[in-house]
């Protein structure tokens, strides 16, 4: 039987697994009375679903719908004047949710708070750009990388990937090498989709190197005459692609550098 590979998480997985091994957890500390963090938790009251200290920083879990309210309180009442970072973690495969975090800094107390909330796959989150302008770029990046929509963002547009890109690269379903769209992106954009057949999969990557090419690459250490055939009778093995319902790239591709 062929090995089952999950499609909802195509990232690298541990090769060796011990089914009796239970991963330990980073210790979580309770918020002690009388500290700055205790005041923060008290100020938030029931808005904080759960609060604990993890590696020196306060982590507050909240409802996703109340993110603006909570961060506004943190900024105005607790002195958290900077939003250092804002992004998401993809838990769609396991729990069908995204975990969003906001990393806030209080420069007077030199304390950091991480506000964490969870949203379902197609839910949107309220923008905090009215509070922190640094979230402008951060939320755009989150939208670009995960496809999480942000309500009331002034300019929600892809930031790192091109505007006409398909797919969201940091999702666990997105392979590291890129998907079908990514591999044909330049060809589609410059020449048009109809040129996929003419150019062929072996030529779409200008960085591809034929290891038997003696015309364009010198063989350092074992020099051979220009244009000599060094394949040793080995037949060329074309790159194979999985069939899609639109085009069968394997059938239509033409081997452009045919060897005799």
């Amino acid at each position, binding site marked *: 039987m062929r090995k089952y590979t999950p499609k909802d998480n195509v990232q*690298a997985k*541990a090769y060796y697994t011990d089914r009796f091994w239970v*991963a330990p*957890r*980073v210790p979580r500390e309770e918020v002690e009375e009388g500290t700055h963090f205790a005041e923060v938790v008290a100020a938030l009251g029931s808005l904080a679903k759960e609060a604990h200290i993890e590696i020196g920083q306060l982590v507050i879990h909240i409802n996703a719908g109340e993110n603006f309210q909570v961060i506004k309180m943190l900024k105005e009442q607790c002195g958290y004047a*900077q939003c250092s970072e804002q992004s998401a973690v993809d838990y769609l495969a396991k729990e069908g949710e995204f975990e969003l975090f906001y*990393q806030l800094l209080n420069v007077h107390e*030199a304390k950091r708070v*991480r506000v964490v909330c969870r949203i379902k796959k197609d839910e949107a989150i309220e923008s905090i750009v009215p509070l922190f302008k640094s979230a402008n770029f951060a939320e755009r990046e989150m939208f670009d990388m995960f496809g999480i929509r942000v309500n009331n963002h002034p300019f929600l547009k892809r930031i790192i990937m091109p505007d006409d890109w398909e797919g969201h690269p940091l999702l666990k379903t997105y392979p590291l090498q890129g998907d079908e769209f990514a591999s044909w992106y330049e060809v589609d954009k410059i*020449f048009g989709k109809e040129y996929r057949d003419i150019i062929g999969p072996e030529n779409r990557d200008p960085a591809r190197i034929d290891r038997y090419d003696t015309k364009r690459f010198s063989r350092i250490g074992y020099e051979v005459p220009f244009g000599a055939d060094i394949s040793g009778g080995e037949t060329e093995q074309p790159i194979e692609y999985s069939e899609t319902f639109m085009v069968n790239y394997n059938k239509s591709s033409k081997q452009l550098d045919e060897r005799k």
Partner: protein
Amino acid sequence: MQQPNKLTPFFENLNFERENNTMVINFGPQHPSAHGQLRLVLELDGELVTKAYPDIGYLHRGIEKMAENMMYNEFLPTTDRLDYIASTSNNYAYAHAVEKLLGIEAPRRAQVIRTMLLEINRIISHLFFLATHALDVGAMSVFLYAFREREFAMDLMEDYCGARLTHSAVRIGGVPLDLPAGWIEKLAAYIEKLPEAVKMYEDLLTENRIWKMRLENVGVISGEEALNWGCTGVMLRGSGIKYDIRKEEPYELYSELDFNIPVSDRCDSYGRYRLYMEEMKESVKILKQLIPMYPETEPQLMAHAPQYISAPKEEIMTQNYALMQHFVLVAQGMRPPKGEVYAPTESPKGELGFYIKSEGEPYAYRLKCRAPSFFHTGLLQEILVGTYIADVVTIIGTTNIVFGEVDR
């Protein structure tokens, strides 16, 4: 309307000539003063910038994605490619975050070496800033002088780790190598010379009429706005907010060292230039204190945590169990405990932090690199508005952005 599928330049929804007499220009992505691949779309009314839109992503390599597919030790050399002007500060920021997650601490000698390397990298980065900023503004000779001093600092890095640009000179749990023989003397000679060089740059620039005209009251940002835009490092301290992570949330040996945090309340490019010069002097001060610390330390270089860190080479070659553990750590990778960490460090550009979410696997479940330049690039869309096009170059220079870490 151009055809987007032909080999012709195509700009999305851009009209270069507008009806209201404004003009839209592309500043970059190949502009020499853009410090990398920054495409800045500027709307100009005469020479006045009325709208600015920084377009980034030209150097995107998916480093955060790669982190999810690489083991913790495997990923470390990739961090060199973030802020490639000062690679060790990235290596350190990453190693620091993983060490916090693992709950281990580097031995004292490794800490001394790391702090030395971090400060040398700060000097390298600040000299690079000074050289390119001066060149952008029009002072050619400062570029040559500053690059000379930078070469000497890079020679020190080369003597230590063999690389000049992509150092990978820090490992998770310590440093790979001890200082080579005679290195301390070379460092001492270098930091003896550097203040003279810094004084020469200051003589050339600080009271220079043209330099002052180009930098004073250019790129003004108030302290409140700087915090709001996520500015850190010199951009924040140049706006009168005294916040340096080395002092406020000390890591490595910074809590034992005596140094000042220069602050400027000028809020403009000139104030920031002065801060860079002062910070180089403070780095020299730190390095001077570190030199006598080094001989007092034990020779251990890597933390002792057999579950996560390989044993020293002698033990691996002589003891069977150390060899077995080393095989497992190389082939399978370390498995940190489940949990999340955000560890900020003060890189030469500002706050460089790594957020790591671990699920107990040898691969990070999520790694977010909080790069200072990313947020400083975001700031450009506000501070460029209302300035003249000649000042655009000065403002990009003063934010000191590096595109390796903007696009990641």
